[in-house]
């Protein structure tokens, strides 16, 4: 029996390591071109005409889902969104069955956001189409790392030897993990900064410098990436209060003074104003937070183009 699995010769994007450095450079080049498209009157190219992309989101997400949706539509693909609230997930269907049912409708790519690490990787083994990891637990968020790379690359021209600090809840952050992998691939020097309770045990395996002092983390940095802190972590006993967290780990204008004068401030969003980032810093001249969002669409267009543009060899 001919199955969709047999025909599938495409590929997946589950983690940064699925891409070579050359491919990432190609994605950057392509994303810049798609950024141009997004700035035109007609923000659309016919590249993925006739392709179907399903956004399967098991966690609430505005930014990533919308970003993938716009990216797909600007490539002329048909994009369908399925979120837990409107699917059979709430009726108790297993993840496998949901993926197989979507796969049976023959999409060309499924973008999966899931709270469980490895869920997209498992889906990739059964879906018979490209699977793109839209964020899985604390494991990986490769398209976020790629759009962050683009944002840095656009401003700095190169990532090599840049000093980058990632500040916040490293333990639970897929954004941190994917960014560390991508930044290290291009020779950046990465420091992570968090209270010890928000760093993974075995953090040395990540190949980064570690500090618990935000001034030390920010000093002489070219790029400072802030991560969102969730109040849920407080209930887990990982820190006593938002006020105390903020006192030690908030990026304020004062703390920022020790960074390089041309420092770039990034945040994957949504930001907690006054908690991990001071309002004036978030809105300040160094902030690239909205630029990241713009690049999100362009980079996801590049990723969809790479994965869905031509599956038959």
């Amino acid at each position, binding site marked *: 029996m001919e199955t969709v699995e047999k025909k599938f010769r495409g590929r997946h994007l589950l983690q940064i390591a699925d891409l070579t450095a050359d491919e990432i450079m190609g994605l950057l080049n392509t994303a810049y*071109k798609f950024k141009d498209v997004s700035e*035109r009157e007609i923000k659309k*190219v*016919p590249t993925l005409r006739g392709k179907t992309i399903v956004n399967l989101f098991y966690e609430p997400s505005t930014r990533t889902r919308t970003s993938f949706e716009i990216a797909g539509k600007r490539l002329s693909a048909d994009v369908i969104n399925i979120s837990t609230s409107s699917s059979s997930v709430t009726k108790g269907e297993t993840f496998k069955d949901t993926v197989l049912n979507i796969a049976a409708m023959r999409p060309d790519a499924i973008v999966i956001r899931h709270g469980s690490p490895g869920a997209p990787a498992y889906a990739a083994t059964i879906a018979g189409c490209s699977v793109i990891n839209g964020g899985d637990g604390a494991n990986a968020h490769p398209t976020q790392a790629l759009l962050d790379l683009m944002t840095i690359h656009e401003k700095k021209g190169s990532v090599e030897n840049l000093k980058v600090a990632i500040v916040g809840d490293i333990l639970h952050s897929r954004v941190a993990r994917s960014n560390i992998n991508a930044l290290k691939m291009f020779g950046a020097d990465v420091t992570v900064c968090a209270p010890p309770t928000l760093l993974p045990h075995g953090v040395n395996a990540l190949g980064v410098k570690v500090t618990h002092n935000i001034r030390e983390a920010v000093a002489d940095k070219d790029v400072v990436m802030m991560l969102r802190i969730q109040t849920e972590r407080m209930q887990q006993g990982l820190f006593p209060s938002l006020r105390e967290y903020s006192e030690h780990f908030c990026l304020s204008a004062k703390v920022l003074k020790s960074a390089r004068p041309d420092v770039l401030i990034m945040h994957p969003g949504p930001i907690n104003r006054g908690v991990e980032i001071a309002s004036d810093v978030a809105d300040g001249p160094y902030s690239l937070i909205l630029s990241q969002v713009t690049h999100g669409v362009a980079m996801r267009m590049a990723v969809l183009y*790479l994965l869905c543009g*031509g*599956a038959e060899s």
Partner: protein
Amino acid sequence: MTAAAKTVLSALEMGRTMARMAHEITEKNPDCSQIILAGIITRGVPLARRLADKIKTITGVDVPCGSLDITFYRDDIQSKGPDLNAGRTDISHDINGKTLILVDDVLFTGRSIRAAIDAVMDIGRPGRIQLAVLLDRGHRELPIRPDYIGKNIPTARGERVRVKLSETDGEDLATVVEGA
């Protein structure tokens, strides 16, 4: 398997051919201020630049000249797969109502020109689109006819036509190589 390359345009012939094409463009478009040249990436871009220079010599008019990338408009993405080396479409002038002349090195099946027309239409609405090619080797698969042809060269389908330009390849030379 190395087949002999047959020269179809020498550097000298290429220069003369381009000059003639520039003249034809000015003849067909009395008001050169309405022209925008769009070179199709890669080799259409320096060719468009050269035509603009020659038009300037003939008429004194500075014709705007840009580059057009057709990567995302190709109809063979499915078979050839994605290409991450797309060039940058850069046509800074408003093309609405203007005469946009597409410039390419070799016209073959016509599919690239179809893609280029679509790409142009997504940027704006030119009054008319014309097509200038250095070489027309035949074998059209779409109803596309150039307005300006440098040289018609009869080829077999399997043969390869190679255009080298000093800007991109260090020399001006057009050759035909027998297919392997």
